[in-house]
């Protein structure tokens, strides 16, 4: 239907996709590239750009391997990025303190949504781990001292890992904030060794997790992102992420 509109009724498609354009502009406002009162003008600019050539370009270049609305979102994202370059706009640095008092009454709707954006970007990194996603998430939960539940280890639970699972249940199913990283990973490395048929020491696993967090920080902070995460603030973001995804 949407592809038919692209070829036969592009204006109808544009009307249909107004919400996509608005959502994309709002995400740029949340990053601080634009003020909230510029939203109407930006929407008008984007609509003009679409009618004056971008829709034709989409028609010519879109090969149909994805949903049109995702591709359209990318085109709008690119157009917004281009406007920020033309207007030489800078993102405002994401206020990490907002993470500390998310529940505070003085944090506004934009700040809540900005955190939501960061959580989704973190989710994209974790999901992109593919087959390492389960291991990454379990290790990161341990790093930020999330109290584990059976659900967190269900895919590792088997007769051959009974002893290792028991160790995890004994130590990580209750608060373990006082434990050092070294001790935490000493207790979990036998599980991964058993499953992967390896004999790594806990320091290797700990270093792997540290490297993963450094990679996550680099991805979250880099490019045009206004984020400025360090290890401590990433821990807070991850605690928030894991506590929300649990619900």
């Amino acid at each position, binding site marked *: 239907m949407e592809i038919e509109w692209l070829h036969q009724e592009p204006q109808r498609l544009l009307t249909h996709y107004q919400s996509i354009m608005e*959502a*994309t502009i709002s*995400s740029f406002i949340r990053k601080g590239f634009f003020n909230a009162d510029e939203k109407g003008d930006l929407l008008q600019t984007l609509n003009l750009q679409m009618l004056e050539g971008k829709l034709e370009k989409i028609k010519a*270049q*879109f*090969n*149909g*391997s*994805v*949903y049109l*609305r*995702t*591709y359209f*979102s*990318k*085109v709008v*994202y*690119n157009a917004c990025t281009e406007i920020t370059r033309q207007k030489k706009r800078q993102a405002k640095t994401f206020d990490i303190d907002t993470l500390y008092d998310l529940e505070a009454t003085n944090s506004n709707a934009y700040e809540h949504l900005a955190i939501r*954006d960061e959580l*989704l*970007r973190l*989710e*994209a*990194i974790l*999901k*992109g781990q*593919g*087959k390492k996603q*389960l291991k990454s998430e379990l290790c990161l939960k341990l790093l930020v001292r999330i109290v584990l539940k*059976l659900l967190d280890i*269900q*895919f590792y*639970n*088997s*007769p*051959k890992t*009974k002893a290792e*699972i028991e160790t995890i249940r004994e130590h990580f199913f209750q608060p373990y904030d006082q434990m050092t990283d070294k001790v935490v990973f000493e207790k979990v490395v036998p599980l991964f060794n058993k499953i992967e048929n390896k004999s790594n020491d806990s320091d290797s696993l700990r270093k792997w997790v540290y490297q993963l967090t450094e990679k996550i920080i*680099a*991805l979250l902070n*880099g*490019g045009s*992102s206004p984020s400025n995460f360090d290890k401590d603030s990433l821990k807070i973001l991850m605690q928030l992420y894991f506590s929300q995804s649990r619900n």
Partner: protein
Amino acid sequence: LKHHLINGHLTDEALALYTEALKLGHLAQLPEGIQEHIQACEDCHREAMDLYSLIADADYSALGQHPSFEKSAPKKRNLYVRLTYGALALAASLCALLYFNSQENLNPSVPDTPIQAFEDSIKQEEDITELPQEEVAQEQSEKREEMPKAEEQEPELLAGNFEVSDNLEDLVGEFTRSDIIKINNPSPGAEFKPGQFISFAWQQEKPQPHFLIIVNNQEEEIFKIFLEDGEYQYKEALSKGLYYWKLESEDDLLYVGKFFVR
């Protein structure tokens, strides 16, 4: 991969494809090289993260069949594995051909239609199960009602039913190496017709009660039963698709198997 690159970075459509794979859980179906490029290229990775944050909460359920992921569900395999599968498939086809040729000579009544084949399968089940007449009749009528429903499904919907579950696929057969449980039925990847009874059987040195759980390829629980014995016959009609079954104790996942209904 070069079809998906422009100036050394992923094209917008390739980025969109990766992002949709994240959103819809089809990472394993991405064309070779895209995921590797994302992991190696921070610029593309960040663009994908940004795009994901834009589309993650959008409702795509009404958009129907995905143009790339749901047509087929090939997992990325290397050439050796593909050749091996090809050779096995060829051998299986030849065996099947020889078998059916020999059977045709013995028994000329080969079913002409899917309905006839289905009724034949019910007949076979009657012979095996020896259920009371009323129960058999009721089950037959239930299954006849089920059958057209399955046949009426849109092909694209059916294709989606055979998508593998990334979480469960890697665990299939994982624990059969344990000496504690020996799985007798069904063998991993066994195929059943819609409505056909499915026998589950396993053995343990020290028999213990377990939960038998059947989930569909979306990991939605279809059936769960607590069993004292190591066998069970599932008699409900399942629609066409890929299913996983699990054996669980009170707090252990003991085994994951899979079977197809088609």
